[in-house]
């Protein structure tokens, strides 16, 4: 890395819990090295310094939920050479995208006394639905090691080592015992992307999909396995409609189950 021009880093926040950007501050061992390798030009959670763009690398956390944010992301894209989205909110709309399956007006009046003050969109959408995204880092929250890997890869101009295979692979690499086969615990690991280190199975619980769907996810087959293990349709529906409920593969599966549960809601079925 030449000292003459350190790449400028910016960290942006949209609707989110802050956990993903906090992961950067949680990299206690690497934080000062990151600060040495990049110029942290905009990162309000960590610094009062707020330098203008353009930025070489923008990390974007959170989903788009307001008209103002929909405009703000356009402006951020314009000043960012590389734009990387971090976390389930930014890559799939996050948990707040559960509103996408319901009537948002009912939501606002339920939560706020004066819904008129609230300026919100009907849907919570991932960043990639609004602007071109150069790389998506999944997870709720993202994994610290993967974040450092993405930054290193960016600095070294290589492809980040972020595999798209199942959680099962990580589980087996860690030589953990499969909770689905050995404990009869329903698990989303076989359709969920690796990255967390197969945490849940390591703690004897089933994966709940916080890294979103893996490549070629066979959601109907895993739903069938859950059924055979005694899970109710409602449970399976909720399992897909969780933290990454709005990601394509999980959404399609939950809608399929919903249609089966409530055929009358479907205008196409008499």
């Amino acid at each position, binding site marked *: 890395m030449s000292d003459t021009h350190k790449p400028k880093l910016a960290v942006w926040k949209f609707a989110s819990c802050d956990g993903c950007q906090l992961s950067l501050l949680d990299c206690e061992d690497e934080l000062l090295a990151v600060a040495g390798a990049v110029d942290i030009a905009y990162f309000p959670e960590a610094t009062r310094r707020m330098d203008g763009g353009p930025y070489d690398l923008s990390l974007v956390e959170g989903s788009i939920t307001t008209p103002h944010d929909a405009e703000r992301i356009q402006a951020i894209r314009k000043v960012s050479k590389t734009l990387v989205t971090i976390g389930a909110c930014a890559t799939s709309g996050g948990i707040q995208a559960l509103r996408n399956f319901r009537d948002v007006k009912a939501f606002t009046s339920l939560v706020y006394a004066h819904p008129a003050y609230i300026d919100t969109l009907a849907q919570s959408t991932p960043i990639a639905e609004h602007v071109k995204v150069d790389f998506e880092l999944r997870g709720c929250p993202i994994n610290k090691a993967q974040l450092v890997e993405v930054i290193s890869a960016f600095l*070294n*101009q*290589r*492809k980040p080592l972020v595999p798209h295979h199942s959680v099962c692979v990580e589980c087996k690499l860690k030589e953990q015992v499969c909770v689905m086969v050995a404990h009869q615990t329903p698990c989303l690991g076989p359709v969920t992307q690796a990255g967390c280190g197969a945490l849940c199975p390591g703690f004897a619980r089933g994966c709940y999909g916080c890294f979103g769907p893996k490549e070629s996810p066979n959601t109907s087959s895993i739903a069938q396995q859950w059924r055979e293990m005694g899970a109710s349709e409602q449970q399976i529906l909720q399992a897909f409609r969780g933290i990454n409920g709005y990601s394509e593969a999980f959404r399609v599966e939950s809608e399929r189950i919903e249609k089966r549960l409530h055929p009358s809601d479907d205008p196409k079925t008499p």
Partner: protein
Amino acid sequence: MGPIEQPRPMTPRPFRIETVKQETSNVFTWTLRAQKEGDTLAFQPGQFTMLYLFGVGEVPISISGDAEASGDLIHTIRAAGTVTQAMQQKQAGDLVGVRGPFGNAWPIEEAEGCDVVLAVGGLGLAPMRPTLYHILRHRERYKRVYLLYGARTPSDILYPEELRAWSDSGKIDVRITVDVGMDGWTGEVGLVTDLIRDIQLDPYHCVSMICGPEIMMHFTARALFHRRIAPQHIHVSMERSMRCATGWCGHCQLGPKFICKDGPVFDYPTIQAWLHKRER
């Protein structure tokens, strides 16, 4: 269990880039020399190495130099994706890692005493060049020698001076065609397969070597069958995802074959069944 190789097969040896020659807009040729003096790399035409770009990654690249000229290692590379694009940014003096050579060779001995048809498409000329050097050095061992070369456009033609020199020497019948002609192009426009129609050959004493995209190799082989060349005398060079080049990683399997250790060069009957299959 024999003694352990030194260095181990998965450990690159450091080489320095001596020269970089830009061949076309996205193809360049490197001349590499070992960082450690006297560390040369003997190879046979058709073999490849694994080139490691520090911190970026490793890719298989065929050797395109002269096997009998001692010394430097020559590679012609197209900037395709992450690693090769980063390679294009490198300059003379920079270091890369080299493992190899790996793989088998073109059947240059089998071809002795025969007509030789070398059919290449695009960058396929690079892996074929060591064979051409060999033939030129030992021209008397071969009968008619054709180089049929299809490029996308005239500006994509690799090694134009050398092609001219080979052609002018009269030792090799060089025929070139392009997919898309441009101003000033007076040569052929069309596919390599079209060139096969016009050549003179003795089908019973002919060996052909083909290198290019799979679809091109498939149709070229078919055109050669029409000229009654037996499938076992047709050889192709295959490409698959490759991680180790040593036969450990399993990525490069094509049906029952490993490209890295059984290939990359195969005679047609061996690979035929798999060339036609669409895996998807």
